[in-house]
């Protein structure tokens, strides 16, 4: 028993030291903020009468791009083409307003996944990073453990699912698991998840990974409503939540000090008709202290250092180890004496 007592005393003395270390580490974690911003903007609806969903996602794209996130860090998924659709009387434009206030399609848009490529499988692969080796860089979510990600989804949804292109669904359980995979692989620091569909709050019910703040345009049992119809086009042109969110974001500049708490109030019940749902229990920070531009823009901490790195001299292609013309050449070809063009139609001609 004296032995046990001694061990106990030792443990009790040593434990506080460890606790201190752990405490300082967690304090360090709290101080650690993001270093880069990414955005994943997804529209899952096809067909002309879902014009408003494309307008929704392009409104977000426009805001995010205007506030500084570069195209290489935005993944835009649009399931159907509305701007150059034959039914669009104003080609190459998608407006957020029947009075054509803002052309959210713009002149500088880059869509990464379009048309039939917007599927549940591609979306989950994008989030978790399990893509085929030949996927180009613009279609990859190359986030690291210093990334803040804004994920915006819009389309038709129901209690526990979101419909992709009228042929498949993603459930809230799959989405929660995808986020957990991202957390395990340290692919984000914080996620702001916004969803604008009917019964949107059901999509964030099953999240269990830390540092996710989720905003939904309607609670379970409510429908998200669209804003107004454009009589020239004949379809609803934008949804209420995104319309007011865009209005709010249009007044945000890259050095603005608007907070996320103000963004959460962007659509009160009297204008949105549905109740905006927020899930904050997984998010440690207080939204009153978080700037909107920490997710929508590219505002991050810059650490100035005096430490000089000594980079080794590069010796050219061979030194760097680049593959020289794919290995074997099939046969040794000498320079031709005379250059010639191929015969374009090598057939025996009638004339």
């Amino acid at each position, binding site marked *: 028993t004296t032995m046990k007592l001694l061990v106990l005393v030792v443990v009790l003395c040593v434990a506080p030291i460890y606790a201190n270390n752990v405490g300082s580490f967690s304090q360090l974690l709290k101080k650690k903020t993001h270093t880069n911003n990414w955005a994943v903007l997804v529209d899952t609806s096809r067909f002309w009468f879902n014009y408003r969903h494309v307008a929704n996602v392009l409104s977000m794209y426009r805001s995010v791009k205007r506030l500084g996130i570069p195209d290489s860090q935005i993944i835009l998924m649009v399931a159907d083409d509305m701007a150059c659709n034959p039914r669009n009387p104003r080609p190459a434009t998608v407006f957020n307003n029947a009075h054509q206030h803002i052309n959210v399609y713009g002149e500088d848009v880059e869509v990464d996944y379009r048309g039939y490529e917007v599927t549940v499988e591609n979306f989950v692969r994008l989030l978790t990073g399990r893509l085929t080796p030949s996927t180009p860089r613009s279609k990859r979510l190359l986030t690291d453990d210093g990334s803040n990600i804004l994920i915006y989804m819009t389309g038709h949804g129901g209690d526990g699912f979101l419909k992709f292109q009228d042929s498949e669904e993603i459930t809230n359980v799959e989405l929660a698991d995808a986020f957990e995979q991202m957390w395990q692989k340290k692919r984000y620091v914080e996620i702001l998840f916004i969803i604008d569909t009917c019964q949107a709050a059901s999509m964030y019910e099953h999240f269990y990974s830390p540092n996710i703040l989720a905003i939904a345009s309607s609670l379970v049992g409510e429908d998200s409503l669209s804003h107004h119809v454009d009589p020239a086009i004949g379809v609803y042109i934008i949804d209420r939540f995104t319309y007011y969110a865009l209005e709010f974001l249009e007044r945000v500049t890259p050095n603005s000090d608007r907070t996320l708490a103000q963004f959460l109030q962007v659509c009160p019940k009297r204008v949105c008709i549905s109740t905006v749902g927020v899930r904050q229990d997984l998010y440690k920070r207080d939204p009153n202290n978080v700037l909107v531009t920490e997710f929508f823009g590219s505002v991050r901490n810059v650490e100035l250092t005096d430490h000089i790195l000594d980079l080794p001299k590069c010796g050219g292609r061979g030194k760097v180890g680049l593959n020289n013309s794919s290995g074997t050449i099939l046969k040794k070809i000498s320079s031709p004496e005379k250059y010639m063009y191929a015969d374009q139609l090598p057939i*025996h001609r009638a004339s």
Partner: protein
Amino acid sequence: MGEFAGVLLVFLSCLVVTGRCRDDTFTEELLIRPLTSGHIYSHFEFTTTWTTPEITRSIDQYRDFEFSHYDLFPRAFGEIVERYHVRELHLSLTQGLWRHRKWGYPIVDAPPGAQLWVWFNPTSENLDQTWRDLVNALSGLVCASLNFIDSTNTVSPELSYRPQGLAEEWYAGNSSYMRYAALPRENVCTENLTPWKKLLPCDTQSGLSMLLHPVPLYTAHYHALSLHLRPSCKDVSCSSVHLELTQALSLVQGPTLSSSGHQDWSLQQLFSTQLIYTCPLASMSKIYVDVTGNRDMKKFTLDPEPDIFDESGSGPSLRQLAVYDVQAALAGDGFNIEATYKSRHIYGIIPSPHLHVSRFITGYGQEGGSITVKFTNSGSTSLSVVYLEVLPWYLRLFLHTSHSYSHTKSLYISKLVTARDREQGWLYEAVVEIPASSTIELSLDFTRALLKWLEYPPDANHGFYIPAATISAVLPTPRNVSVNSLTCSTLKDKLVVQDGPSFVRLHTETLLVSLPTPDFSMPYNVICLACTVVALAFGPIHNITTKKLVLKKIENKESSFSRIVHRVKNIFKRGHKVENDCVEKDATKEQVIVEENPLYEDREDLEDITEEDEDEVKTSNKTENSQETKKDR
């Protein structure tokens, strides 16, 4: 000696000024051609050429390119070319159909949708895998769904799509180095224009690319973006070679008729902007207006006056171009070219070009049909053309039904690849001879396959697109042909008419085929119906089969108080129960109801009772006593 010193001086000054003498050049040119149908055809061509000793060696020895020190050549594209063993690449994204019958032959012909054909360097690697990786990389570069190109829509035709760059016979004749695929469903919009513009050295800040605003471009009747990479000779003498990247944009815009019916047009009207800045990286920046037949400015006048006139060709292939040097003209403010017509536009009969082709589907129903292609040769000599058809596997062709409606002397198939379900599509390449001044029709029957449930796209009822067929021909004269030589790099040289046989490549329309589509809501409907039937039918059937029906006397209705009194009396008068019953039942007529009784053994009794009930009903008069006796029994 003096000359040597002079050359040395020039060389040294070159080095001093630029660091090294420039080995890449960039030119931008625009051709505007008013068409007889009232439309305006605009063609932008941005050409970047690059010469280095490494590039020359790669071209000579058919090895992969090794690029270093990117300057004007776009790096994003160069890295893809380097990595995937590309020697020659042609990519086009088109919206709309080019109407050969009315508009002649364009400078670059492209079918609706996306089309990609690539000649690879001879390597030991698996070219199919390289092709898959290349299309994925290109889909990221141009923001198009090119990654849907796979083995089911890729072919290697034998005679069509020979290399347009430098190629020797042993290489050009080996079609295994080449891959061709077309995606007719791809649509083109600003998202494809944006990365294409970013490949230009001056982007959209200055130069002719300032004119490229999306809204007028996508309101056009025909819009084609293309990228062409090929190794070619630097000049006509072909003493040195370079790598040439041509970015072309073709537009056909609707007749810009003013209120008085004149076909007036201007740069401001066509592109909704004026030229303001020149591109300092361009060595040449020119605009050509096709004034064939209007050299004396009788039909329409141009303002400002063109700098010079270029003329080439003769007779029906005469071509006259008014040339504007943009770099010289943009000394001050904006530059705008305006054309004013003297008289109203007359929609007359347009003489058809030498060869035009049309393709359509015949038949009805969802089981079969046939593809028919109609060739029209309006010239005075017979033509041999190569007809290439690429079809998906789900149109099962009956090759024995290939026939022509008019007598053809010779039709031989140069390459045929039969389809394998879900693995390989059809390749049908034939050489057809079309006699002079005649129309021939070829048709091929097919039957439609049933796809598996998950192979249908989300909008399956829209139908499936069939890629355009390609017709390659050599016309005897360059009439109507825009470009008929391979040896030139700039549009200026390409537009110089060279008399003699001219090669043209035409594309037909794409087709839309509806396959037998299942009702995708059927599983849901079946589940609902089946569950309803089960719910409605199961209950009663279960009841009937597991429960028994028996007769039960009903008590007549009394008030609850009297019932309580009655019960109290019953407790005391149990023995006289029968008489009491008799007394009560005097007043009321007895009614017999049938009640459930779970005892199965009494089934026989039930039958007896029902029989007797029937007797009762028949007689209709029964005393209470007789009922009592039945009960006792």
